């Protein structure tokens, strides 16, 4: 509460977006994000003993970028802030995190097509590069991820018809 002073009037509202219906008062239903993750935000690997640490060399730069994207906590502040209620920052963070790593490259084509498809089904808007999401993101997810997702999407749509 250090950001406020005596006598302040504070407006408290829920995250507003068509894809985030209000459940009650300030609580909104963000299960649209769960459905986007279910459509591709994973890597299919056989379980078992952990493999040797240096089996898959990952360049330091890629590892750092993937880690920065992976810090997204999926809160939805990007959607609430965006004038288009676009979920591109969230989806692109998830797509980037996996597309940058060798483990995620195998399914990268299907992943980006499926996740963007699901994002559109949920009724999120498109990105117009305003950058408000990047400013409000509590984890400082970079707009670069959206550019990376667009590249991934273009690449994927050339290879595969969806």
């Amino acid at each position, binding site marked *: 509460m250090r950001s406020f002073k005596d006598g302040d009037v504070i407006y*408290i*509202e*829920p*995250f507003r977006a068509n894809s985030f219906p209000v*459940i009650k008062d*300030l609580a909104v239903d963000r299960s649209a994000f769960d459905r986007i993750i279910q459509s591709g935000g994973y890597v299919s690997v056989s379980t078992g003993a952990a493999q040797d640490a240096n089996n898959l060399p990952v360049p330091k730069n890629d590892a750092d970028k993937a880690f920065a994207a992976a810090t997204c906590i999926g809160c939805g502040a990007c959607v*609430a802030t965006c004038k288009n209620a676009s979920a591109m920052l969230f989806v692109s963070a998830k797509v980037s995190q996996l597309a940058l790593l060798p483990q995620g490259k195998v399914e990268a084509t299907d992943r980006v097509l499926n996740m963007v498809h699901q994002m559109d089904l949920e009724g999120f808007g498109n990105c117009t590069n305003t950058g408000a999401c990047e400013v409000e993101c509590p984890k400082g997810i970079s707009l670069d991820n959206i550019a990376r997702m667009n590249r991934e999407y273009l690449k994927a749509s050339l290879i595969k018809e969806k």
Partner: protein
Amino acid sequence: MKLTLKIWRQNGPKDKGKLVDYPVDHVSPDMSFLEMLDVLNEHLVEKGEEPVAFDHDCREGICGMCSLVINGRAHGPQSV
């Protein structure tokens, strides 16, 4: 600290919803924003009113459950 909160109240997805004024007193600057809402809810329950529903879980920016727009900004005025 004495504050006036204008909180969005909406009974359900179909309800129209409106901003309701809630005065709060004795707010310590050391409180978190959610703790301030906890205090408000305690008073509301004591008075027999419906407490304000809001999402929260870890309260330390890890889980991503927090979802308040404070003075028009998602997660409030403080930035990273």
